[in-house]
């Protein structure tokens, strides 16, 4: 078990290294930050001066070495555009992002798992289909359309809720609803399907044969087993959201989050911000996934055996 966890951690570290390297080279391939630093229309002389000043003429291996060095000494440099430490910029946005993510995940789990069980148990009646259909609505409407719609209804017309920033708990409602709406259907669907898998297993048949009530058996045995699958899907969903899902919501609700920071940095080719930002997000995602993987393997005896053997 411990060797397995260690090996998983080693792979995580290796993945991290691959990402760091990819990001370093990809950012430099995608263009120059100059036009975004001072504004477009620079003369050739200006360009040359600025390239020297921002050390864009440093050979790539030198820059790469400095970047790798930063992984150890923590000096990730200054943003080209804001000229302040990128670590400050990321720190400013990490917590608001995490808050929103946690809120959305909590709401999603509270709604999606019970609804998924309902959809599985009533799979052959209209109830199952109806529950699924409603959840689809939230998922199937583009996130920003739903967000703007919520803004118009609950703030513009009804004037019930605020739309700008993350100042109070009230500010969480609309962004959380928007993000959850997109996740609920997926988690619910996997819950339902995982439950259906469990329903088909022999021990369920045995349980039923013993005359036990299906609903209770499902909740007792089924959910426990299906929980493994659900766990991994939830992990993936959170990871996906952490990685890219939130930029739309952040833009619309003026939420000071990571998604907006990263997309802006990518558009403006602010390499230092992009590098450190992606690195932070990747670290979070890898951690989530590694934990889920280890938990997954640990919870599933068959995989544990195979994992130990291979």
């Amino acid at each position, binding site marked *: 078990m411990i060797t397995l966890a260690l090996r998983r951690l080693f792979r995580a570290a290796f993945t991290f290294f691959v990402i760091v390297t990819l990001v370093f080279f990809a950012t430099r391939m995608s*263009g120059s930050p100059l*036009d*975004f*630093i*001072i*504004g*477009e*229309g*620079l*003369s*050739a*002389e*200006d*360009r040359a*001066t*600025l390239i*020297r*000043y921002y050390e864009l003429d440093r050979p790539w291996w030198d820059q790469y070495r400095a970047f790798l060095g930063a992984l150890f000494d923590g000096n990730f440099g*200054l943003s080209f*555009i*804001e*000229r*302040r430490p990128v670590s400050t*910029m990321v720190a*400013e946005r990490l917590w608001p992002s995490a808050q929103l993510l946690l809120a959305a995940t909590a709401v999603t789990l509270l709604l999606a798992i019970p609804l998924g069980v309902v959809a599985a148990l009533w799979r052959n009646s209209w109830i199952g289909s109806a529950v699924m259909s409603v959840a689809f609505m939230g998922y199937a409407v583009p996130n920003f359309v739903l967000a*703007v719609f919520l*803004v*118009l209804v609950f*703030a*513009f017309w*009804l*004037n*019930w*809720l*605020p*739309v*700008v*920033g993350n*100042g*109070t708990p*009230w*500010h969480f409602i609309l962004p959380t609803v928007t993000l959850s709406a997109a996740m609920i259907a997926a988690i619910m669907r996997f819950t339902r399907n995982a439950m259906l898998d469990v329903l088909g297993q022999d021990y369920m048949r045995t349980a039923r044969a013993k005359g036990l009530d299906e609903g209770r058996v499902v909740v007792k045995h089924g959910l426990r087993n299906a929980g493994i699958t659900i766990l991994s899907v939830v992990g993936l969903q959170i990871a996906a959201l952490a990685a890219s899902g939130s930029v739309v919501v952040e*833009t*619309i*609700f*003026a939420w*000071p989050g990571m998604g907006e920071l990263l997309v*802006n940095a990518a*558009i403006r080719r602010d390499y230092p911000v992009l590098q450190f930002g992606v690195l932070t997000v990747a670290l979070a995602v890898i951690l989530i996934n590694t934990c889920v993987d280890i938990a997954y393997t640990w919870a599933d005896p068959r995989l544990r055996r195979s994992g130990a053997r291979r």
Partner: protein
Amino acid sequence: MKHLLTATALVAALSGMAGAAELTVAAANVSSYLDPGKDHSNVGSQFYFNSFDPLIHKDYSKADPEWQPGLATEWTLIEPTVMELKLRPGVTFHNGEQMTADDVVFSLNRMFQATFPPYQVRMRDRLSNFDHAEKVDDHTVRIHVKREEPLFETLLNLQQTFIIPEDYTKALSGDPKVAEDSDYEAFAMAPVGTGPYRIAEFVPGQKIVWERFDGFWGEQAPLDRVNVIQVGEVASRLTALRTGEADIATNIAPDQLSTIEADPTLKVVGGATPLFHVMIMNQNHPKLQDARIRQALMLAIDRNLLNEALWLGKAVVPDSHTMEEFGPFYMPELKTFEYNPERAKELLAEAGYDGSEITFDTQGSYYTNGMLAAQAITEMWNAVGIKASIRDLPKWSGNDPEMMARNWSNPMYFNDPFGSFGVMWAPGGPSQSEGRFNTDETYAEIWDRFRFSKDIEARKAAYAELMDHMAKDPAVLPLYRPYESWAMRTDLNWAPKPGHIPYVLDFRAGSVALTN
């Protein structure tokens, strides 16, 4: 349910409450840095005027420049190339320092003799005729120019020549006695000036908080506090007005005006901004080297239709690169650009246009209505037989040799043709350096007369020649002066003043009032 909102701490920070006069502005963009010296962006120009002063002010309620004392109370040319200025006594910076001649000399020379590369850029494109500033005594400075300068006052009114404190800036990093590049970098995160509002908080890309500066030398600011928050999405900006989270929302596109007008508690003010949305063309692209092709591209564009359709007729379509704000240099009599699709077709035939694809670059929704105009323009080109398509790029392409035509904006950086056309189209300037615009000796000679003639008529005549040159071998077509709108509460009295450069949010005394 409204209690829901009012119960929150948020609302305590909002305006309209008894006592403190406070405003919140929902801005489409908040700057990434605040340094009046290096910045010339449309985003940045919103924010400097409240916190900084130039040596020479003007009456901003008038389009024609009417100079007024600023941080200098008197100024005289003591030699053809030397101006002496008497400084206003008793001026205090936001950090409590007294302003002296040293601060003025430091502020000016950091630009005139720039060593910090971003300042060098601005020095070259507009301040290159300045040689240096020197201190005479604590309240007198002299400014030396290289050649006689017809635009002395104008250039000392610029955002780039706003005054900043010397000791404070030098002490920001490294050696407190030496001005290092890192000091200027640090200044942009913690700017200090002499204006009526101090910058109490600045989070790049998110918010700016102004507080009234009680030590201001002039008339006290009317507001205690102004919060500027970035709200990028237009629906959210409009909504923030309705929920009371904001009192003013910037950058409302014409198509959204009807939403505001339907609400009696809100109003819109706006006007044609002193800025042109332009189409630039690459003179050196192999497919466009024949000037007749570029002329045809211009003649095919019905700018009045664009105005009627996309700007509800509220934009201003110019006949030449000229605007009223140029004062004596406003030249409506010039007819440089026109719409004539028949002539466009003839020119294409004469030039032997081979039907190859001509692309129009645009940067998404970077400019208000930019994407719509791009699509409409390519459609107009198609109508005269040009095979046209759009390249929507997430970046500037003006320095890309593949660029054929694209949209750009040409703001008026100061009230003179040099401050608008001149900054972009000087010989050796940005457009030429980027390889899409050529000048020859003739152009340079006309340019020199336009830039340095002391006689107004001589400068005007030279400008007319430049425009003629541009019509014969075109590289730019001004499309229109866009109509910019600010939406706000009806009880708020604020409007952009005609004497300002584009987008300035002026909250000084006399510029804003609450009428409840």
